[in-house]
């Protein structure tokens, strides 16, 4: 782990809560941490909670989207949860296309969605 964002393992699911501001270097380190943790644990599911993020710019959006695609290539389903209303509005206003990424309102709903996907 070279980042400072903890990744918890519960059963075959990884849960990570982004609680610090993601500057570019932290975002890149987070991506590496997530992928190496998937490899080590063989997790089937991943929930990324971004409810702590007040800002998601195009760089962070790209890292998050790419991380879910990379996880998918490794056989892991990802659900992105907790996006704040102002973050959602900002990304859509900018023209960010939210494609190929599963989302849920909060952690509880994200885990439920993941449970259905993994059945």
């Amino acid at each position, binding site marked *: 782990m070279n980042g400072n964002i903890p990744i918890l393992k519960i059963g075959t699911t990884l849960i990570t809560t982004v609680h610090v*501001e993601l*500057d*570019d*270097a932290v975002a890149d380190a987070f991506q590496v941490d997530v992928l190496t943790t998937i490899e080590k644990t063989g997790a089937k599911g991943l929930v990324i909670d971004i409810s702590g993020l*007040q*800002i*998601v*710019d*195009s*760089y962070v*959006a*790209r890292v998050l989207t790419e991380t879910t695609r990379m996880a998918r290539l490794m056989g892991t389903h990802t659900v992105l949860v907790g996006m*704040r*209303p*102002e*973050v959602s*509005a*900002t990304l859509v*206003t*900018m*023209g*960010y296309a939210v494609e190929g990424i599963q989302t849920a309102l909060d952690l509880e709903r994200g885990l439920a969605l993941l449970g259905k996907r993994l059945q």
Partner: protein
Amino acid sequence: MGTLGASQNPTVVSQQELQITREDDVSVVRRAVRQVALARAFDAFASAAITTATSELTRNVWVHAGGGRAIISELMDGPRSGIRIEFIDKGPGIPNLERVLRGGFSTAGSLGLGLSGSQKLVDEFTIETATGSGTRVVITKWKPY
């Protein structure tokens, strides 16, 4: 270069200039703008919009020009309060500006939403660029009533 929707004569209440000399300065400038938005009691949406636009434009200065500066001003225009940020670099300029402003065009392997997206997030946006001598972008966001 036209100035769309510019206000007549706002008063500058405060001003700070920040140098952009390393990647970490993207966060530094972003935080400074967020502080001003909080001080001016911008709502979460307006605050996220101006802070995100700042993040994009500061990163542009760093990635494309290797550095520059940002001047953050608090404005009053009658009863309205606003934030204006000026991004100045002496980089290579943007030769294909129209293409870049349409969005989805990137030379840096990113989403290509930096300039076009920032423009959509603010109330006023002006850009002056000259190949070989640099770029100056000015954005303004007014506090919603």
